[in-house]
């Protein structure tokens, strides 16, 4: 809000530049979506072995971007660079820059802990804490000091669970362990846990690969709804899933980013032969 007022007071000259910038951005970016995450020449090394080669990509805000590609192609590795999850691996080294809203997240001044509060993550296997459903959601806000225990926290828990479409199923058993839920419910609980700290970006690493088709459909539906508020990056092995949930798609192969395009266009009319081969099922 403060920044909005400043802009208002800055007068017309400022407004002009903003408009200009917006106009030039619109010229580059289709559909009028501003860039949320911008990666430039990102390479990742595990020890001596290079896993990712000079990946440059712009990820638009409030859309679902799908990373597809065969196993071991580096899509998960790249995803985990976006919230610096790779920092936890000793031998992992990242070069290049990734900027979120223009700020380089590998800047030494950036605290990875705060970054991860803004860039939430959902993992392949549902991994709720072995605590109550309530505590699973409340943990993030509690450690970040967003809310103290009490009605404020209750509200955050309810909102997060509602947004994850889980509220009606669990509202009567918030004190029961989160590990007692079904697989699909657990995964939605993990999504609720991620959005409880109010992130801008949600990274999903094959969120449905451990779920049955019905639970998968529910999570996909949820992803579609979440797109209104959050920028979502999803890694998936399922081409159909990419087609169903994403607006844009990026194809990775052997550590290289091959192609980025509107999902529809990529699936109907891929520019690269390798993309064509992959989505038609010739390899991978």
């Amino acid at each position, binding site marked *: 809000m403060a920044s909005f007022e400043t802009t208002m007071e800055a007068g017309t000259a400022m407004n002009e530049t903003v408009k200009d910038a917006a106009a030039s951005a619109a010229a580059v970016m289709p559909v009028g979506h501003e860039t949320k995450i911008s990666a430039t020449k990102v390479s990742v090394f595990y020890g001596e072995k290079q896993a990712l080669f000079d990946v440059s990509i712009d990820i638009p805000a409030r859309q679902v971007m799908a990373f597809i590609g065969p196993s071991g192609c580096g899509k998960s590795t790249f995803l985990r660079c976006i919230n610096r999850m790779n920092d936890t691996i000793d031998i992992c080294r990242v070069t290049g820059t990734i900027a979120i809203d223009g700020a380089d997240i590998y800047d030494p001044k950036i605290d990875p802990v705060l970054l991860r509060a803004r860039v*939430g993550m959902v993992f392949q296997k549902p991994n709720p804490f072995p605590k109550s459903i309530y505590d699973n959601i409340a943990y993030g806000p509690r450690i970040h000091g967003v809310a103290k225990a009490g009605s404020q926290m209750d509200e955050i828990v309810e909102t997060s669970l509602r947004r994850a479409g889980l509220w009606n199923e669990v509202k009567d058993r918030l004190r029961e362990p989160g590990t007692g839920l079904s697989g699909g419910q657990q995964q939605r609980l993990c999504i609720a846990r991620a959005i409880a700290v109010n992130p801008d970006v949600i990274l999903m690493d094959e969120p449905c690969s451990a779920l049955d088709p019905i639970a998968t459909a529910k999570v996909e539906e949820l992803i579609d709804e979440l797109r209104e508020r959050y920028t979502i990056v999803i890694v998936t092995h399922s081409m159909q899933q990419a087609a169903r949930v994403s607006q844009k798609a990026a194809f990775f192969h052997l550590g290289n980013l091959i192609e980025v395009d509107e999902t529809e266009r990529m699936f109907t009319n891929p520019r690269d032969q390798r993309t064509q081969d992959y989505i038609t099922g010739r390899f991978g």
Partner: protein
Amino acid sequence: MSDTTQQPARKERNAWFEADARLKRRHLADKRLRAYGIAAIVFALGMLATLVGTILVTAAPAVTQTMVTFEVEVPEGSVDPANPSGGSYQTMLNASIARIFPDVDTPRELRELRQLFSNGGQYQLRDKILANPSLIGGTVSITFPLSDIGDQLHKGVIDRNLPPDFRRVNDAQIAWYDVLVERGQISTPLNWGLILNADSRFPELAGLRGALVGSFYALLVCFLVSFPVGIAAAVYLEEFAPKNRLTDLIEVNINNLAAVPSIVFGLLGLAVFLNFFGMPRSAPIVGGLVLSLMTLPTIIIATRAALKAVPPSIREAAIGVGASKMQTVGHHVLPLAMPGILTGTIIGLAQALGETAPLLLIGMNAFITAAPDSMFNPSTALPTQIYIWADSPERGFTSRTSAAIIVLLGFLVCMNAIAIYMRKRFERRW
């Protein structure tokens, strides 16, 4: 097998029979292996039963203590009411003994008569008068232990049918004892003194109180030192330390430390804690410190194993919502690893409870007749007390040694039971 008589199947079955022979051999080998296993277990159980059985049988006489009851006259003027502890209680006691055996008068006979009774009687009489000075001038009934030979005679450990040269009591003593039995002055109540008394030169008065208190203090010190230090070391090594040659070296050394003979730790304790730091000799605090040196590697190894067993997905989940490394460990990993850590700790402490060699070297095998008031006072511990008693020549100590072993084993079983209970109680699924 129902179609054995049917002809058409015969040809096919020939092939089957051949396979059957091989199969039979395999099954036989299987059965043999199983039999070996059962035999090994039976052998082990047999040895255990023999061990425990021997200890129980040997300890049985120590369950009760033969006591004798006397009515002792405390004449007016024999005790100064202003200073009751100064009275000559042994004289009064001797007088009442002499009243029952009037014809014993030579000094040699009197000495032999008194050998039947523990010298604890006079103190009991004194304590009664101290507690209630109004008893002066009346008659006081006291029940106190027979001496070791009287006790053994009563329990049949000393065989009265042996020729006098082969037994530790002479015919006169047996006759006096029989008189006491006839008069109904002998009783055999449960031997609470074994737990409640401190150590003594006389088996009938010796108890485990000093050793129990000493062991408790030593284990307390051991726990307070090794539990936090062990967990801190393990958490750092497992969660924070970089994986390089130095940490590898540390890990190997910790594993080696767990295998170092305990007597070496005793020597270390003697050199460092006693000689260098000048800490009190025979004190439980030093014993606890030495034991904690031994327990530390056990706790570190158990804690690291428990931390490793926490699935990485939990760490990822915590880091993913923005928990710092410290919060991840403190809020999630450590609580989940706690059952394993506690189990390892209790097993380490149980090991420390039974450890004797290091305590011998720092002087916890001293002869100390009072339970320690604090962890800085000299005392013994359970295993060293067993060691002392096993070394003593009196017959009464034989059964008491076994009884002390049972007490020690009882504590060990309890601690292991607690460890199992904790593991079951706090085990969590994820």
